Structure formats: C-alpha cells, structure tokens
C-alpha cells in the first residue's frame, strides 16, 4: 500500500502550485484557479488522513465535501466579481485592482 | 382634607415643582397653554398657603405644621419643615408674588417653556429656605434658588448694554450681571457651607430646633486647630453673616444687586427684589441671631454701621442714577438697610421691648419691601416694554399720555417712599423706633437716607411723568393694559391695606418675634 506520505507530498506539491498561481499570476481568473488548486490540495490531505488515521469516522469525508461546497460558492462569487470588475475596467489584471489602497 | 392638612408644608413646597414637571410635558410651541398652565399652577401654592394661613394659630408659640422625615441619617440631617409667624409671612409673600410675576412675564416670547419651568423651580427653592428647619436642607434650597435665577438673567435679561472689563474686554451686560450674581453669591455661601458642616460635625445634628438648644453649650468640642471655642464660634458667625449680608445685600456687598436687577427680565427683578433678598434677612433672623446670640450682640454695632451705610449710600446712589431700573434697584439697597438696622437693633437689645419692636419692624419691612419693590420693578417693566429705554432723560411728561399708569406709579412710589398711610411707613417707623434707644447715632444718621429716599423717588416721578411732554412718545406709549392692571392691583391693595391696618400681618409676626427675641 502506498504510504501516507506520498499523498501528502502530492498534496503539498499541488498546494505549492496553487500558491504560486495565487501569488504570481496577474490574471484574476488564474488566481481563482490557484485558490481551487490549494483547496483541492487540502481535500487530498483530508481524505488521506481520514483513510489512514480514522477510517471508521466519516468526519474527514464530510470536511472534504464541505470544502467542495464552499469552493464552488467561492468560485461563483469570485467569478462574478471578476466579471463585474472586467465590465468596469476592461481588465482582469490583479495588480490594477487597488480600490482598497489607502 | 386631613391629608392636605397633615402634609401642607410639603405640598406648598413641592407644588410649584410639580407644576414645572407638568410643563415639561407640554409642547413648547403652545405658548398660550404654557403661560396659562404656569399661571394657574402657581395659584396652587398660593391657595395652599391661604389654607396654611387660616389654619395657623398666631397665639401659639414655636413652629407649627411640622413635618419630619429621615433624609440623611448618617450625618443627622432630616427633612424637617415647619412654620412660625416670620416664615409664614415670607411664604405668603413668595406664593403671592410668583403668580403675579408669571402674569407679568406674558410679554416674554422666547423659550417660554424653559422660562416658566425655571420660574417655578425658583419658587420651590425659595419656599424651601423659608420652610426648612434643618440646616442642610436650608442650605440646599438656599443654593437651588441661584440656578434658575442665573439662567433667567442670562437668557432672558435685557438684550442691550455692554459692560467694560479690564483690558478693553467687553461682555454683554446680562452675562456680566448673571455671572457676578452667581459667582459672588456662591462664593459667599462657601463659608456658610463650611460653618454649617462644622456645626453638624460638632453637635452631630443639623436640626435647627435641637441646635437652638445644644449649639450654645457645645463649647468643649468646639476647639479646633487649637483655637478657643469663642474664636471658632466668631469665625462661624462671620461666615454666616457674610453669606447672608451678601444676599440682603448689606453695604459694601451690594454691587451685584444693581447689575442683576437691572439686567434681569421684569418678572425676574420682581422676584429678585421681592423674595430673593429676603432670604438673606431671613437667614439673619432664623439662624444668625438665635444661633449666635452673644456674638450678634457683640457685633451688632458693626452690623448697624453697615446697615446705615446701606441706607445712606443706597439712597445716594439711587439718586445718582439715570437708568430708571437701576434707580429702583438701588432703592432696594436702601430699604433692605432698614431691615438690617432693625435686625442689628434686635440683636443688641435682645430680650427688651426695643428688640421686639425693631424685629417686628424688620420683618414687616421685608414684607412691605417685597410688595413695593416688586410693584416698582413691574412698573418700570411696563414702561420699558413700550419705550424700550430705561433712560430717565428719554422720558418726560408722560403723565399726560398715560394717566392711569401715572397714578399707579405715584401710588407705588409713595409706598416705596414710606408715605404714612401706606405700608412702608409702618415698618420703617417700627424699625426706627426700635433702633433709636439702642443705636441712636446710627438711627439719626440713617435719617439722611430717609431724606434721600424722597429725593430719588421724586426724581423718578419727575423724569418720567412730570415736566414738558416728550412728543417722541405721543402715539407710541399706550396705557397700561388689563393684564398689567391685574398684576399691580393686588399689590396696591395690599400696600394700602397694610398701611391702614397692619395688625392682620403684624399679629402673626409679633407672636413669633416675641417668642424668639422678646
């Protein structure tokens, strides 16, 4: 059986990919996608820990499902915001979004 | 009925405050409603006072209708009310003048609600002083009266006029006057508060009736800061005297008075002269002499000197005025001087008939001055409302335009002058009679003041009513109206009645005075 650490390494890699996307990409849609990657990395962790640590308990799966739901909602809201911004500024470049600047 | 009878003093005391509370819930823009509510409301204490008056037994000694309830047990202070002949006369004066003053303030159009509420609170404050038999309560009410009066002068006082201070600073006259009144009086009552607290600390009680008995004998515990009991008592005595002398006012503490009276609204002046000044004299009679008989006897000459100065200089200063209201204001200094002269004579001659006569005269003079000064201020207000000037030189020959007003002014002036047949004479005669055997020199000197009383009264009449008609006022000056007549008529009736048959009031006063000083 594949040891747990493999899953964890996979998840960490995935998370790093997501993080890189969030921090480095200019396109707001890409940032959203990065967030999705990070969430899914977390999901992998959750499911992996459930399977290896407490297989009798469903808590891990429940958490994973909750994260799905939340990320779906988040993407919906995020994309709506991006579209709204695009309509106003004809741009989805994150660096230009400084409405909250001092 | 029993309830009213048992709690009559509480009812008298707080009914004005209750009316003020009612006013609080009336809409501010309903001016007529506010005025009439305040007026009819102020008749309630008057009615209650009449009940009190007819229930009062003039022949009985001591205080009547006493009420006592625990208030501040830890320091021995209680809510203790009671009346004797002296305070009853003052209560009657207060409850009588307040409705008239409220009626006189119908000409006020600005912030009526606040005005009326303050006025009624003022009444409660004044009544409290006359009714309380507990030093602490006394002091509380004594100070309560200041606050509404401050606002009455400051907010509704005359709008014209400025007063120059040092360094080219000018302030509106009413600000100056209200400030002077407030700070000066507060400053003086500081000593009073300390002295009262000392009495309380030494004897463990603030109850006047108890104090009358124990305060004189509590020598041993009086030695504070290594000073002897006599010294401490003298200091406390002077603290009392200064506080009350300022309120009376006795020369040379009187300069707040002309300013305050001149700037106050008409009704404010009426109450200020009619009642507030009496608080000081009442303090002398109720507290100073009974609590410090020995000291007041020792220092009676000093007090008589100040009183004589007030009489003489008050009359001179009144004669020197060009401002009608200020002239009347100074006349108060002059007249209240006689009250203090009577008090000084009574203090000096305690236990003799001279004391009784002088004190009778002093209390009666308080009442009489209340009537005539209120009347005079009102009449000045009547003419001021129409001409908007108080400058005597700006009038002239107005008798031809306003004969009814002129007649009333002459009548009231004569009462103020002390014309025999009107009220002022009886009391001045009694004061002079009581003071002559014991304070001969001062009494003789005060006659100079009496002479100049004539001079300034005639000056007032001369400049307003007599002389060539100042045609500027033809067509502008209207005759005194019905409401104003209704204000002055009761005062005139009382002035005449007291001049002809003073016994109805004097018999009540005499009982208390004989018991206290005879």
């Amino acid at each position, binding site marked *: 059986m594949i040891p747990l650490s493999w899953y964890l390494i996979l998840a960490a890699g995935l998370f790093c990919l997501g993080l890189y996307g969030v921090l480095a990409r200019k396109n707001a849609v890409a940032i959203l996608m990065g967030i999705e990657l990070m969430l899914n990395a977390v999901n992998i962790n959750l499911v992996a820990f459930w399977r290896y640590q407490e297989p009798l308990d469903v808590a891990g799966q429940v958490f994973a499902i909750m994260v799905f739901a939340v990320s779906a909602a988040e993407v919906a809201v995020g994309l709506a915001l991006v579209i709204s911004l695009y309509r106003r500024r004809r741009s989805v470049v994150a*660096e230009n979004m400084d409405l909250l600047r001092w | 009925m029993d309830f009213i009878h048992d709690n009559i003093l509480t009812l008298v005391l707080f009914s004005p405050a209750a009316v003020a509370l009612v006013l609080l819930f009336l809409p501010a823009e309903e001016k007529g409603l506010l005025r009439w509510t305040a007026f009819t409301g102020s008749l309630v204490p008057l009615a209650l006072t009449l009940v009190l008056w007819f229930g009062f037994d003039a022949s009985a000694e001591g205080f009547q209708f006493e009420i006592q309830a625990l208030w501040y047990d830890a320091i021995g202070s209680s809510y203790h009310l009671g009346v004797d002949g002296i305070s009853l006369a003052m209560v009657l004066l207060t409850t009588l003048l307040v409705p008239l003053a409220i009626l006189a303030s119908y000409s006020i159009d600005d912030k009526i609600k606040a005005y009326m509420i303050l006025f009624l609170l003022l009444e409660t404050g004044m009544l409290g002083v006359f009714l309380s038999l507990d030093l602490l309560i006394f002091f509380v009410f004594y100070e309560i009266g200041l606050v509404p009066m401050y606002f009455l002068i400051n907010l509704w006082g005359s709008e014209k006029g400025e007063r120059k201070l040092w360094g080219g600073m000018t302030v509106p006259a009413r600000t100056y006057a209200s400030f002077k009144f407030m700070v000066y009086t507060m400053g003086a009552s500081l000593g009073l508060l300390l002295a009262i607290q000392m009495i309380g600390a030494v004897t463990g009680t603030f109850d006047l009736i108890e104090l009358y008995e124990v305060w004189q004998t509590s020598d041993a515990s009086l030695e504070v800061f290594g000073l002897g009991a006599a010294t401490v008592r003298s200091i406390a005595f002077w603290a009392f005297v200064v506080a009350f002398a300022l309120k009376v006012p006795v020369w040379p503490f009187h300069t707040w008075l002309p300013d305050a009276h001149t700037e106050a609204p008409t009704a404010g002046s009426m109450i200020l002269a009619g009642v507030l000044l009496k608080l000081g004299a009442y303090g002398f009679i109720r507290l100073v002499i009974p609590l410090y008989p020995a000291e007041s006897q020792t220092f009676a000459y000093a007090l008589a000197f100040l009183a004589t100065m007030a009489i003489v200089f008050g009359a001179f200063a009144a004669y020197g005025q060009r401002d009608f209201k200020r002239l009347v204001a100074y006349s108060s200094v002059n007249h209240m001087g006689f009250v203090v002269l009577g008090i000084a004579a009574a203090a000096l001659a305690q236990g003799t008939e001279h004391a009784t006569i002088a004190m009778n005269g002093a209390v009666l003079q308080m009442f009489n001055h209340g009537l005539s000064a209120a009347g005079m201020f009102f009449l000045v207000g009547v003419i001021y409302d129409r001409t908007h000037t108080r400058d005597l030189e700006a009038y002239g020959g107005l*008798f031809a335009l306003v004969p009814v007003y002129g007649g009333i002014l002459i009548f009231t002036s004569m009462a103020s002058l002390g014309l*025999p047949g009107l009220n002022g004479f009886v009391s001045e005669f009694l004061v002079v009679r009581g003071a002559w055997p014991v304070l001969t020199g001062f009494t003789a000197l005060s006659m100079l003041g009496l002479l100049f009383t004539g001079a300034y009264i005639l000056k007032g009449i001369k400049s307003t009513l007599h002389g060539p008609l100042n045609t500027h006022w033809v067509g502008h000056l209207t005759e005194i109206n019905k409401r104003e007549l209704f204000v002055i008529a009761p005062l005139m009736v009382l002035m005449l009645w007291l001049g002809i048959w003073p016994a109805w009031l004097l018999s009540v006063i005499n009982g208390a005075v004989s018991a206290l000083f005879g």
Partner: protein
Amino acid sequence: MQTETLIWLIPLPPLVAFTLIVLVTNKNRALSHTLGVGAAFLSWLGAIVVFARAIGEGFHHLGEAPFASAFNWLPLGDSFLQIGVRIDPLSAVTLFFVGWTVLMITLYSIGYQNFGAPKGDHDRPGLPPHGATVTDDHGHKHTVPSVEPNYSRFFAFLGLFAFGMYVLVVSDNLLTLFVGWEIMGLCSYLLIGFWYARESARAAAIKAFMTTRVGDVFMLLGLVYLYSEAGSLSYHVIFSPEVLERLAHDPAVGGLLGLTAAGLIGILLFIGTVGKSAQFPLHVWLPDAMEGPTPVSAMIHAATMVSAGVYMVIRIFPILSAGSDHGQMTAAMTVLAVIGAFTALFSATIALAQNDIKRVLAYSTISQLGFMIAALGIGAYVAAAFHLMTHAFFKALLFLGSGSVIHGMEHGVLHTGDHDVDPQDMRNMGGLRTRMPVTFWTFLIGGFALAGFPLVTAGFWSKDEILADAWAHQHYTVFITLAVAALLTAFYTMRQITMTFLGEPRTEAARHAHETPWTMTLPLAVLAVFAIVAGWIGIPNDFLGLDLGEINFFHGVAYTLLPSGIEPPGITFHIIPLLTSIGVAGLGLYLGWLVYRGYTAGASDPLQKALGPVYKVLQNKYYFDELYDFLFVRPAKWISETFVYLWLDRGLIDGILHTLARIAYWLGGIFRNRLEMPIISEGADRLGDGVRDFGWLLRKSQTGNVQGYLNIGLVLVVVIGVVVVLLLN
C-alpha cells in the same frame, strides 16, 4: 349720633370723594365737583356739629374730659400701639376753621377752574388752560377762559388734602397726626405740581416736598424718641404730668448740648414744623409753591398745611415747656422764640420787594407763622392758637381774593390777546376796585385783618394778644422784633392793595378785568365775615381796663394743655402794647398808601430808590435759593452721581471685585499657560501626533494589492514558522 362716632366720620367724606373721583367719576366734571364739594360739606357739617357740642360742653369741662375714643392698632410684643380720635378745645377750634376754609376753598375751585367754560383749543393736561375761542350770536370771535383739562383730578386731590388735615386735627396721638401731616405733604406735592408739564411747577413741587421732608425726618426722630421714652404717642399719656416730669428731668440721649429729653424731643418735633410751616431756614419752598393753582395756595398756606405745623407745636407745648417754672423759657422755647421772631421780620422784609401778588401773600404767611411760633416761644400759646385761627380765615380770604384778581386779569389778558402781560404781576394791575368790587371789598377786609387794622379786624386782636403777652412777660426783644414786623406787614399789605385795586388801570388787561362768578365771590364774602368777627371772641376780658365779663371765650383753649384743676393764667391789660399795635398798623397802612398811590405804569418801585442795593437783595429773597443750591443741591448731586455711585460703587467696590476677578483670571491664565497648555495639553497633543504619524507610516503598506498582502502573509508565516520551530527546540 354719638359725638365720638361723628368724630371718626369727619375725615372720611373727602377720602371717599377722592376714591370715587379717581376710580369712577374722573370723566365727569360736574359729578366730580359735586362729590368734592359735597364731601367738604359733610365734613364741614360734622365739624360744626362737633364744635357746637364742644361749646355746649364748655371748654373748661372739655379740657378735662375731651371727646375721645381709641383702639389698638399695632400689636407690639405684649402691648399695643393705640390710635384714636380726640376733640379738646384746641382741636375743636381748629376743626371749626378748617371746616369752613376747606368748604369755601373747594367751592371756590369750581369757579377758579372755569367750570362750564368750553374746552380749550390747545389745552393739554398738565398745563394751565390757555383759553378757548367762541363765536357769539353775531358771528364775532372771542377768546374766553377754558376749562381746566384735569378738572376732576383737582377735586380729588383737594379731597385727599382735606382728609389729611381732618385726620391731623382729630387725632389723639402724634402718630396719626404725622400720618395726616404726610398725606398733606403728598397732596401739596401733587397740587403744587398740578400743572406738572411746566418746568417751574415740577421744580417747585419737588422743592416743597424735599424741604418739608427735611423737617419730617427730624420729626420722625422726635416721634420715636418720645415713643421710646413715654411708651406711647397718645396725648393723654405723653402729656400726663408723670411723663412730662420724667422727660423734663432726664438728660437728652447722649447728653446732647446739655438738653433735657423733653428739650431734645421738643426741638426735633419743632424742626418738623420749621419745614411744614416754612420757618427760617426751611422757608424757601413756600413762595415757590405759588406755582400751584390759587385755591391750592390758599389750602396750603392758610387753612391747612402750614397751620398744621403751628397746630402741632401748640399740641406739644407741654413738652416744649416741660421743666419751666413760672414763665421761664426752656431751651426749646428759646429756639422757638428766636426762630419765630426772626422769621417774622425776615420774611416781612422780603415781602416788601415782591411784585407777584401771590408771592407777597406767601411771604406774609411765613411772617405771620413766625408770629405764632414766637408767641409759643414766649409761652403765649393761647395767643398763638388765636392768631392761628384768625390768620387761617383772613389769609384764606386773601389768597382766594388774589386768585379772583388773577382770574379777572386773565380774563382781561385773553380779551386783549396780549399774552405778555403777567396776570399775577401787581405792576400790571391798578384800578381793579371798580371792575371787581366784591373782590376789592373782601380783599380790603382781609388785607386790613392782616395788617391789624385796629379794633375791627380779627388780625388786630390776635396780633395784639401776642404783643401784649410779649410785653407782659418782659420779652422785649421779641416784642420789638414783632412790632417792627407788624409795621412792615401793614406797609406791604397796603402797598399790595394800592397797587392792585387803587388808582387807574396800568394795562389794557387790567382795564378789561372782570368780576368773577358767584362760586368764587361767595366764599370771599363768607371768609370776609370771619376775618372780622373771628377776632371778637378773643377780646381781652379787661380790655382798656374795663370789665367786659367773660367776653374772651377763646381763652378756654388753654384748658387743652393744662392739667386738670389749674386755671389758665391771664395777663393784665397794659396800654403800651395796645398803642404799639394800633400805631404800627396805622402807620404802616398810611405809609403804604402814601408811597404807592402815585405809582404809574413802567415806573420803578419807590422803595427801590429808597433802599438802593438792599432792594435787590430783598427782591432776590436774600439769595437763599442760590445759597441752598450751592450748599446742598449741587453737593448732593455730586455726592450721589460721582462720589457714591461712580467712585464708591463702580470705582472702589466694583474695583475690588474686579481686581479679585482679575486675580482669579490671572491665576487661571498661569495655570493655563504654564501648566495646562505646555504640559498637559501639549503632552497629550504630542502623544496624539505620534500615533498619527506612526499611522501615516503604516498605511503605506496598505497598497490595496491582494497579491502583495498575500506575499507578506506568506513571508510572515514562514518567519513565524521558523521562529516557532526554533523556539520549540
């Protein structure tokens, strides 16, 4: 009706009239004067009835048991101050002449104030009527006198005045006497200032009030002194032998001037009279009081107010003379004699040089009152009372007569339209004898009474009695002074009569003068009768050494003042004072006629040539007005306005207060500028500034760039993670 009840009621009708006129009928002239005259009539009736009953009792008996009733007025301690009424011989006599004169004066006023005349064209309240233009049946326009604008008010004041006088007379104590006294003072003020819109009237009214008030405050002191010594002010107590005895022996308070208590009280009370009866040095108000309408002058100068002063001195004569044995003068009496005699002579000299018809009479009044005071000073109180009564009649007559003259002259002035003619100036008159016969004859009687025309007139008998008394008690200085004064009196009286009535008219106005209506002449006639017969009741019993029996009924007044059982002392007849009286009167009258009979219009006064500069001094009344103005009025003004108000009150006392306020202000400034501002406030400000600056600094990090934040977050997470790991190990 019981006499006591009646006495209580006597003063009331005028008071009721006053009240009703003021409150109700002031718009209706006829009703007002009906009330005024009716009230005067009722009081007169009461006075006459009481007088008749007093006579019925007999003065001897009445002196011992006067009509009296009293009640408790003021409760004072355990006792009461009583007031009440009392009619004894003195007050009965006073009541008699007061009743008559008041009634006559009130009646006279109807005519004087032009009742029934049309309203004036330009008349204003407060000014004398200027006359009205009427058109008669033929279309001619005439200027006629117009009715007084304040007609009703005049009767109201007269009523109050009468009330004051009646109160004074019927009082049984000095307190209510003083009440009446002061009420009259007020009324004299109101009446002298009746034409208040005139500057001169306004000033005269104030002068009268203030001058008499000088006396009044002393009198008040006298009252309280007496009250505190005797314990009462009722006559029956203060004049009881025990009280008088005590007063005569106690030294005055403070041992003042070595006087006895009685002496000091007497002098204090007398100063009241000096003011009220216009004695030197408080005489200055009375001539100015001529500003009032003429009936007022009569009222003040004859019937009531000035008489009140003398009446009071007669009343208190027991106190004045307490301690004197056998006619010896006490200190107080000496004061009276000196002031009285001096005033009599002094004002007679002034009267010589006056041209205003009423002013002459005013000074003669002062002079005659001086006679009475001097008489009291030498102990001749019956003579003083006698002269008081006769003088009241003939002086009221003279004043009303002069008013009638003025009224007639005013008629002439209006008729001719020459308003420069002063209707009161005697130089503008002359020849009125034929134009105003009733006025002339009555004025002549009055004038002769004043001059003391021998044997017929009332004035002769009373003046003679004073002189006889002075002679009999060897007060020769007083005797001579009064005799000279009497000579001058006769002289200026005749001067007045000559200038006014005799000769030819000196102006057109005088030529057109008119006799006055019956309401004015009737009182003149009535008073003229009294100006003659009033003297007959005082003819000495042993006149010319004859035994006339008890003809001198007036002497009974003495029983007022005497303790019971003592007969009043009489004086034996002596020829020298009689001859003196006759001589001075005759000589004076003759000289007056001689000097002035040839007086023509525009000529200077014959006396002016004779007296030279002295005349000017006399004309200016010895410059007393100027002197008093300089000595008292101006300093009083200065003291009031500058010294007391500006210096003492505003300067010193307020100065101290302001200094205190300034110190407080300064202290506050110190606290503010040295502690509050630099340390507390500044420190707090700095703190705030620092926080703000720091915030400025920090906010630079708020770029609004999400990725920037996330980067920082990542770095921090890493750093914190490293730190935590390191720390944990």
